[in-house]
């Protein structure tokens, strides 16, 4: 899908208008990853299914591919169509846990 021209702003206008707030978001991401490395128990975050999806999302973010948001949304999503036999929890956790499906 070629989306060029769908936003009324030029490239330089988009940079001028949105650069500062997105710079802030990058710094927040970096600070979050650093904070995990300063945790009280020192446990690596890499074993957590949410952080595994997070790492995949970061790889897409730094690639040149188009439609990054669509791909990142799918990284965090449950790709199955099977219905859960019963309610496990009221609230979603933010990323799909493949290990939970196997149980």
């Amino acid at each position, binding site marked *: *899908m070629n*989306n060029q021209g*769908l*936003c*009324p*702003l030029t490239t330089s206008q988009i940079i001028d*208008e*949105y650069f500062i707030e997105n710079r802030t978001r990058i710094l927040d991401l970096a600070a979050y990853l650093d904070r995990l490395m300063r945790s009280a128990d020192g446990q690596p975050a890499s074993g957590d299914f949410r952080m595994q999806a997070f790492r995949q999302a970061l790889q897409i973010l730094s690639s040149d591919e188009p439609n990054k*948001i*669509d791909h990142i*949304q*799918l990284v*965090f*999503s*449950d*790709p*199955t*169509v099977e*219905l*859960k*036999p*019963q*309610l*496990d*929890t*009221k*609230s*979603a*956790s*933010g*990323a*799909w846990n493949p290990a939970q499906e196997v149980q």
Partner: protein
Amino acid sequence: MYYIEMHGHMVSRTTDDYREMAMAGCVAISEPAFWAGWDRQSADSFEDYFRQLTEFEPKRAAQFFIRHASWLCLNPKEGEDRRLTAQVLKRIPKFLDRPSVVGIGEIGMNRVTRNEVDTFTDHVRLALDYNQMMLIHTPHLEDKYKGTRVTIDNLLKFRNLEPRRVLIDHAEEHTIGMILEQGFYTGLTLYPNTKVSLARAVDMIEKYGPDRITISSACDWGPSVPTAVPQLMLEMRRRGHSEELIRKLVFENPLEFLMQSGKFELPRLGIPKALSHTAPGA
């Protein structure tokens, strides 16, 4: 500019919020039945809630010249309880003739369980039996993609269902396409963290065009912003979009959708009820 808040849980908001919304241009609010944050224990509890939605909230809104419309159901967060669902569904029909009730909603799924799908299907049957429009919730976060797919698959099994009388809400980048392709209305929800930001909502409008898209704050008892829709108007102006396009999204689209109920009207703006459930200009 006038706007319609397509999804606001006003029972959880203060009267001051109504005033702030009115001052920002809000002329109508559509309020779907919702989860209270804890599970209700009986059908009587729901009946009290339906009275609050159809008697008290329209009066509170009217103080600020806002038209209040409501949708009734047992919310997806409580859909696992099949016994309670059966009891609540029996109570809903007697409320459907009330002047502010525009349909059944927000129905749908939460964690996409077997019971939730059965509860959803029961609500769809009820809506079709009583010629009601539907407002459908889609699950959050990792459950949204699957939940939206299962929702659409189940809706398409009903041959007498008119997609343009159904709004599938809380669309995001990975679900908006499949909703619009099937002819349904959809909603973009401006809600912190779990839904869509202002910038992403405008991105989706740019990519998919404005037809059959509505905007809402989904303000409720959680951290949320009742005046998120006027904030979106500002974001669209920041992008260079026209006033005509903004008006279509925040006023004309929700108006067209709601007027299909045959009950919705904005007399102060000279907009009477539609004679049939077909929207003007549709």
